[in-house]
């Protein structure tokens, strides 16, 4: 049992290109490479939802963190409401920035996010959905959902793909 575990951890780390997790939940979000004349990095929100659509935790929010005061082009929080599902379910009740959760928009590519141990400890056992929503300026909007059980019975990896504004979303669960 122990031998299997020590082999699995580096293998997963190699897959994600990140240090192996102690425990909990991690995800990998792919921002797709798009060929458009006017490209803006998408606003992305990732959160954990209960079956009744209430939100257990917001895992990540990528938005234009510049504001007019520090950068004339900065839009700041103006387009957060275009992440319509996140905005209605929890976004408008939050004050951004949030340490460890919010950050700048990301370029095309795969991006790793980890849910802090403190947050996973607060997740009550049950069924959940990991939801990722992306909205792009002069572009579209897409939502990708991955259902999962918490706590995970075994180390597990699930994935789902968007078709336009999101690439592959991978959810990694560790007991």
């Amino acid at each position, binding site marked *: 049992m122990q031998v299997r575990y020590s082999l699995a951890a580096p293998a997963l780390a190699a897959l994600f290109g990140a240090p192996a997790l102690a425990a909990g939940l991690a995800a990998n979000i792919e921002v797709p490479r798009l060929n458009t004349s006017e490209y803006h990095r998408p606003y992305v929100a990732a959160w954990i939802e209960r079956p009744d659509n209430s939100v257990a935790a917001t895992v990540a929010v990528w938005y234009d963190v510049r504001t007019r005061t520090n950068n004339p082009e900065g839009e*700041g*929080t*103006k*387009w*957060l*409401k275009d992440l*319509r599902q996140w*905005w*209605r379910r929890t*976004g*408008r*009740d939050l004050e951004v920035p949030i340490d460890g959760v919010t950050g700048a928009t990301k370029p095309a590519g795969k991006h790793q996010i980890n849910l802090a141990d403190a947050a996973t400890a607060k997740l009550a056992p049950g069924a959940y959905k990991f939801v990722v929503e992306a909205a792009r300026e002069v572009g579209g909007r897409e939502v990708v959902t991955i259902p999962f059980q918490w706590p995970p019975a075994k180390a597990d990896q699930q994935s789902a793909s968007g078709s336009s504004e999101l690439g592959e979303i991978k959810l990694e669960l560790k007991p």
Partner: protein
Amino acid sequence: MTLSIRTIALATAMTAALGAAHAHNAWLLPSTTVLSKPDTISVDAAISNDLFVANHAAMRLENLQITAPDGSAVKPESEAKLKHRSVFDVPVATPGTYRIAVVNGGASASWKDKATGQPKRARGTAESLAKDIPADAQDVVVTQSIGRIETFVTVGKPSVPKAIGQGLEMVSTAGALTDLAKGEKATFALQIDGQPAKDLEVTVTAGNTQYRDKLAEFKVKTDDKGQFSVTWPAAGMYWIDASTKDNKTTLPQAKERRLSYAATVEVMP
């Protein structure tokens, strides 16, 4: 009884100028109803048949009232009365739900002139009517009216706008007036002077009427609590309207009070 051409022309002119509630739709159209950051939104105000095409008459803005979430009054910016629509900007600076409304109240009277036997009409406020109606007028009929045309805009987390308590108004029973989405059921309540407006017919019409053959409006009646529900078939701007009359007038001569209400709400996809 014969009506002179002049009286018919006068009555028609007054009806057209007012954009009579029954002949045309009076609407406010905000550029957006949901914001995540303080900004300035733009509102069109017009009276027309098509929702929401300004092709008939501009709405007068003398009675424009904008209320911030904390109840304070907000001044519109850059008000302009164009040919077929009025337009103004609303700076929405604090979190919560703003109420943008045009509230028209007045009275109209018709009577028979004693000397000539001609039917006459006048419209205005209670005070101006008192001067217009001669003391020896016969068959005097006075009607009062309160009409409210409004819309709502939210910055950040929605709040509940303070109820007006006068005339016909709509309140949201669960969720916010700016938190509507396609496929979801929204429940509203109509109140007259703060009391439930029971058994009142409400009409809900989706915008973009010019792009379809059928108006496809849906009519629903309020229940004992003055409530009615709508499950939104598609995203877009919707116009909700209701009207009724009662006898709770403030003018002693007035036997009837006409109440009307219209609101524009935005349904997101």
